[in-house]
Structures are given as structure tokens and as C-alpha cells.
């Protein structure tokens, strides 16, 4: 139950093989292909969110995918507020998730929680079809 990169051998457009690249997000390794956007690499590795909002500390990731909404911003090699859906990934990029807590906002949100791996066991994670269909 996560986003994923379509394997080459099943792809009707037959993409070339691509060059493997490695990025780190908050120190954790993610693998991608040269020419992918940062969002493409993160989503292709099953990540859905890489930011926490300032007021409620909610997770956010990609929304529009075309550079309009700024929901997917993160820090790339020290540069803040970079739209992950618009910036091409380069081998060795160091990514840092962003959470700018407002004074008085929920202090329990810490940065290591900034990413949520799709399908990970969380308090709300469910398996199989949701109830009430």
C-alpha cells in the first residue's frame, strides 16, 4: 500500500535502464535513478510525506506535483524550501525534512518523526479493506 516505481520490464513505454543514485533523507538512505526529481525518488521508495506543518504538526508530502502548492518543500544540501517535485535529484544529495514549529505549537513533534514511510505500522495503520464499505 504505497507509491512505487513501475519496474522496467513491465513498463509499456520501455524506459532505458537509468543510472542508480543514492540520497539521504534525515540520514536514512533512499535509492533512485538519475534524472528523477527528488519527489520521484522519495515516492518511488515508498515515502509519502517529508514535512510537518507549523501549527498542527501534520505530515505533508506531495500534493500538486507541478511546483504550484509548495507542500513538498524540504532542505537540499543546506538550501531550505526547495520544491521536491521540481528539483532533480543528484547522487549524494543530503535531504532534511522541515518542521518550523510556532511558539506554543505542539512540542512533541520532533524532526525524526518528519517522515512517515508508507505502509509503516502506525497507531492508525490498518491492513486490508477499511471497515464500513
Amino acid at each position: 500500500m504505497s507509491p512505487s516505481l513501475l519496474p522496467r520490464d513491465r513498463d509499456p513505454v520501455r524506459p532505458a535502464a537509468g543510472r542508480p543514485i543514492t540520497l539521504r533523507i534525515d540520514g536514512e538512505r533512499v535509492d533512485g535513478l538519475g534524472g528523477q526529481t527528488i519527489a520521484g525518488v522519495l515516492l518511488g521508495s515508498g515515502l509519502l510525506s517529508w514535512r510537518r506543518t507549523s501549527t498542527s504538526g501534520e505530515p505533508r508530502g506531495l500534493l500538486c506535483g507541478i511546483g504550484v502548492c509548495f507542500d513538498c518543500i524540504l532542505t537540499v544540501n543546506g538550501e531550505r524550501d526547495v520544491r521536491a517535485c521540481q528539483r532533480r535529484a543528484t547522487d549524494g544529495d543530503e535531504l532534511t525534512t522541515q518542521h518550523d514549529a510556532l511558539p506554543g505549537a505542539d512540542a512533541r513533534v520532533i524532526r525524526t518523526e518528519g517522515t512517515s514511510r508508507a505502509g509503516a505500522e502506525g497507531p492508525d495503520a490498518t491492513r486490508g479493506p477499511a471497515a464500513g464499505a
Partner: protein
Amino acid sequence: MTLVAVVGAGPAGLAAARSARRARADVVLLDTADQLGGQYWRHLPDDRPAERPEALQHGWRRFRRLADDLRDDDRCRILTSAQVWAIERSETGVARVHVLLGPTDGTARERLALDPDSLVLATGAYDRILPFPGWTLPGVFTAGAGQALAKGERVALGRRVVVAGAGPFLLPVAASLAATGARVVGVHEASGTRALARGWLSRPQGLAGAPGKSLELAGYVAGQLRRRIPYRTSSAVVAAHGGERVEAVTVARLRPDWSVVPGSERRIAADAVCVGHGFTPRLELPIAAGCAIGPDRFVVVDDEQGTSVAGVYAAGEITGIGGVDAALAEGEIAGHGAAGARVDDAAVLPARRRRAVYRDFARRIDAAHGIRPGWTSWLADDTVVCRCEEVGYGRLRDTAAASTAGSLRALTLGTRAGLGICQARICGRTVEDLTRRVQGEQYDGTSLDRRPISGLIRLGELAADARALDDTPLPSKGPSS
């Protein structure tokens, strides 16, 4: 020699650039992306090109011809990764176009100042998305995101994806998701069959002139049947559920005004939902250039695609949501005019005929799929309307009701709605709509479309000097695609 600057390298901009070159003007073609084609022809990067792009793309050969013609042409300079962040006006028209060259949202991009004789704006449009409870959860995407990640990355946004919203664009999105390995569990079109018939079946003689478009749509419908993707009308995703991500959605039947039929709600397991309720034109540059915007909130153009500002032309979705064929025709006419050639030239007569046919699509789309007022029945008081500043519907409505000023500016300053990092690009139209409903006659009618600085620029970049085009080394002809 006339220098024409074309902003946007989607179908309209590519057609404008080639047409201006054919009319013997020099051209500078700019796009924020690092490849040509815009959103419509978004494709895999040069690092891993597709052997069979046409399996996913419509009109791919048309794109190749346009892109190759321009790339092989020494008098067309193609600047990719080029963001136009401001347009300076003079008394007679446009004085200067300010550009940043370099990686998206970088910190040390090169500044360039262009002084073209005329300007073609072809900045396109992006998905409008109406809020609903849970729409801020990771796993909720715009329909355009589903398309962009499928075409540009070959990434499927989920395994079980629900597509919802309004408009013919939902069909190609569902097709792209399915061709990227996702299972599309349903396409939910908010409009009812009566509205669809009113838009698409009235004046059938108008559609007869557009065989390509009808075939494209028929192809999507056939593809849906083959893949057994259920297509439901009068239906919408009215809530998304989950803790840290989407796990399920609630779909409901809608009345003709898009309000929910009570008791019709149904919960469906899904790990992604792609939503789009039509499109919002990217108006910041036309507004910065001083172009008049019509009551329909698109750039006003004349028969030559000229705007209200001398020397400034507009083409494509910023003049009305008409699709790729209208954009190509409008671009061709705009580039021709921008180069100083006459609109009644035989060279652009076919484009003018095509424009008339395909513009009809814009009217049909609006009649069939336009947003209806009952959608607010999906909202709860704590449903976020402005995602950036996390402003809820209840707070926005109550503040608007308490205000006697009737000023949108006072409302946004009071609630911070629309003042976050996206600068109201996502919530602007919704905030305006909700304000108008609460304040009625009192609402001052201002819009949140004005953004004098179009895009993110760092202070260090702002402080740096800008170079002129002639001092800028001729860029490589850009990527090969």
C-alpha cells in the same frame, strides 16, 4: 530584427515560438522546467528516455517536430530551468522581463534581464482542488500530480487509487495511473448526466469539426472499459480517512448542485486519491504585465491573441481551458502576431479555423463540469481550507461573517488564509468563493490572483546584478527532448 520572448514551453508556447520564427523574428523561449513540452507532454528525463513514449503520450510526433524544429534553429534560443519572476511595465507596454537561470529554488541562480520587442505568455494552468475533510493527508494528490508522476517518473502514486473531481481530464489521469501499475478503483465525476449531456451533446455539429479530440476522448472511454475502471457520475470523494496517510475515502452521490445525497456515503479502502475540479490559469505574469483579465478570470485576447497591453500576446490555458488543440492553434496565431506579421495572412488561416473549433471545447467543459455551489456540504468546521497556514472553514466563515469591511484583504490578514508559501495558488479561488457567499453584496470582489513576485527568489539573488541576453553565453540547445 524583432525579438519575441515566449514564456512557457508547453503546446501553446512551442507553437508560438515556431510561428514567430517562421515570421522571421528572433525568439527566446523560456520555461521553468528543464525539458520542453509543459505538463501535457511531460516525459521521462534524458537520463532514461522511453523507447515507446507514444504508449503514454498523445500527439508525441507533433511534439517531436515542434521541439526539433526549434532546437535546430540558431535564431531560437531555448532557456530551460528559467523562471520569469517579474515583469516590469513601461508606459507603452512591457519594459523588462526578469529571469532566474538555474536549479529550482536554488540559492545562486543567475539573473538575466530581457528587453524583448514583444512577449507571448503561455504559462498554462494547474488543477483546482476543492477542499474536503482529510484532503491534507499524505496520499491525497491533485489529478495533475497523478499524471505528472506517471509521465515524468513512471511512479504510480498508489496501489489502489480513487480518481475524483470534475472534467474530461480525469479520464487520461486514470489511464496514466493504470498504465503505471496502479489499480484505479473508480473515477468519480461530480457532474450529473444531465449537466454532461447539456455540455457535450448540445450542438453536436460543433463537435463534428473536432474529430481528433472526440477520438482522443473515445479512446480514453474505451481504455476505461477495457481496464474495467468504474466511471460514476453524480459522485464525489467527500472525505479521506487515515492517521498519517490516506487509508480510505468516503464517496457519496451528489445532487445536481453537488450537495451530498444524505445516506449515500460509502467507505472505500484506498491508498491514494487523485482529485481535480477543473483548472486555474497561471495568471501572475499576465497580471504583472498589466493584461486585462475578463469576468471569467481568463486573460482577455483579441483575434490576434493580443492582450490589452501593446506587444503582449497570450495563448493556451490562460485564455480559457480549451485543451491541447486550442493551445496549439492559439500559440501559432500569437507567435505570428508577436513577430509583427498580419493576422489575416494565409499562413495562419488554418490555425484560426482550428481555434474556432477547439475553443468550443472550453465552453462545453464549463457547461458540463463547472463547479456547483453545493460542494460546501462536504465541509466540516475544522476542514482546512488554506493548507499552508492551516486555516479551517469554520474560522474563515465566521471571520468573514463578523467582518463588516467586505474586504478580502482584511479577511486574509485576519485569518492568514491565502498568505502562506503557495501565495493562495491552491486556496485562493476557494477563499474568494466562500467569502462571496458569506458577505454577499458586501464583498469587494477583489481576487487573490495578484503576485508581483512570481516565484521564490532568494535575497542574495535579488541583490545580484542581472545580465543582458547578449552577455549570456549561448546556452546549449537544452536537453535532447
